[in-house]
């Protein structure tokens, strides 16, 4: 009996999961080592450029921002929101365009599913890889912000796990959505949704400026929850609202994983 069969016999789990999502990370690393670094750098640079343009440019016009009964410098106000954005960008980059490529062009997932791997291995592995990219982006952003002296306290370090949760949520959701897209035109919708969400979700100003209905719409979107979550940890203002944001992302992650693995099975094991 071959080693591969002995390994497969030990795995008593379902047809959906072989317990090896980490091999996806190994594959991601092998491919990444020799790929171009340009998309990585640009994805990371975007929120940094926002911080510089808005923080130092607009910041001089705006002055300080008052939320509740605290008043803070404008640049300090936008930094945590942009950190959440950074985490989202990293996660979305891998879980949408890269996943689209592997689904429809290189047929990588189809190949993987002709081995003992299951759809859940692929979903978990790829989403973790996207999550790692989101985490790296947010760490990079935090470093820049720290160098600029905008981090308020050590609480800001806790914003990193919060940003990871945000990245996980977007990675999971992004891959689920992408699994339904067949053409590049459909993929364009992702950008159409992302840009306004980035601009209007409250990273650059408090959403209390909106009329009531619009405020409610924004509060239903994931990025607002991400920004509020990261901001809460950033300033060390933990309240019960944080639990709602965390619950929102756990729901988003679970739904994304469920849909993605089902979808992979429907696409390649029928």
């Amino acid at each position: 009996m071959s080693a591969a069969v002995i390994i497969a016999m030990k795995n008593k789990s379902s047809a959906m999961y072989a317990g090896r999502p980490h091999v996806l990370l190994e594959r991601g690393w092998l491919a990444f080592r020799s790929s171009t670094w340009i998309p990585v750098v640009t994805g990371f640079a975007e929120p940094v450029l926002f911080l510089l343009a808005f923080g130092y440019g607009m910041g001089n016009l705006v002055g300080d921002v008052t939320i509740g009964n605290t008043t803070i410098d404008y640049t300090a106000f936008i930094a945590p929101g942009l950190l959440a954005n950074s985490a989202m960008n990293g996660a979305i980059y891998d879980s949408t365009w890269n996943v689209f490529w592997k689904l429809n062009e290189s047929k990588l997932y189809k190949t993987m599913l002709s081995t003992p791997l299951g759809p859940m291995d692929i979903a978990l592995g790829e989403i973790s890889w996207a999550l790692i990219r989101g985490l790296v982006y947010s760490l990079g952003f935090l470093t820049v912000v720290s160098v600029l002296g905008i981090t308020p306290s050590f609480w800001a370090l806790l914003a990193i796990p919060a940003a990871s949760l945000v990245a996980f949520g977007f990675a999971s959701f992004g891959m689920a959505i992408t699994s339904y897209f067949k053409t590049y035109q459909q993929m364009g919708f992702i950008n159409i949704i992302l840009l306004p969400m980035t601009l209007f979700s409250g990273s650059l100003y408090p959403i209390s400026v909106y009329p009531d209905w619009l405020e409610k719409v924004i509060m239903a979107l994931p990025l607002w929850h991400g920004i509020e979550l990261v901001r809460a940890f950033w300033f060390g203002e933990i309240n019960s609202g944080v639990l709602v944001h965390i619950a929102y992302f756990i729901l988003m992650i679970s739904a994304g994983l469920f849909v993605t693995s089902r979808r992979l099975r429907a696409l390649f094991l029928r």
Partner: protein
Amino acid sequence: MSKPLISVRGLTKKFDDFTAVDGINFDVAKGESFGLLGPNGAGKSTTMRILSATSTRTSGTVEILDKDPEKFGPLVRAHLGVVPQQDNLDGELTVSENLFIYGRYFGLSKKFINGKIEELLEFAQLEEKRDVKVEALSGGMKRRLTIARGLVSEPDILLLDEPTTGLDPQARHILWDRLFRLKEQGVTLVLTTHFMDEAEQLCDRLVVMDKGAIMAEGSPQGLIKEYSSKEVLEVRFGSDRNKQVAPQLAQMCERMETLPDRLLMYTEDGEKLLERIAAANLHPTTSLVRRSSLEDVFLRLTGRTLIE
């Protein structure tokens, strides 16, 4: 006789109204080289996907090493090496990385795979290309690497879907040589092809498929003996005259097939038949005497040629 590795009974696959595979039966024994021969659209690839536990069936039973691939997908796939019709190598990785990561998908240890890589690179004659990205390889090299990749898990059965389609003649011969070596080593091969010469070279036994059904089963020689004559005389009189002379010629041989460009006359002795045609004062523009092949078997069974 020991239990077959693969056992298929009444296998049917429908896509909406279209029946791709229509109630087929066959067994594959250990160490055997088994072929599915038929034209495009015969249901060969659909059958292969069901065997490789990546497609479900509409009805019938399939057992691979006593396991139903639909219920034990991952375990069944651990027994198989799969070489799909279209190369699906990982274009972002090098030759050796492709072998490495594929082994990792099976959960094999890094040590085990690294030992295996040397052996597989040698088998695929790609030692000098180990650090080259696969996109830079020729079609034949890619196909050899895909086969080597399928062997990394030391499979009990190697499934090959149209292994030489799209390759030039030289690359095909190299590939046949590699596959023949595997056969000699006792690897069980299941392959689909629409090339009769490939089926004759590689298969111990084969089924002829057409429109989702099995038309005949046997060894290449056995099928030729059963469904065709020893020799075939191919004659051409020019496209207009072919039809005119056909009725007269048909009475001179056991059986005749009229193709658009030529007439195939089935006989035990082609040269003698050609002499009789000349004696009847019919003078073909070209003539050729050859042995019967699986192509003739297919023509007899379906009235059509394999490659249309």
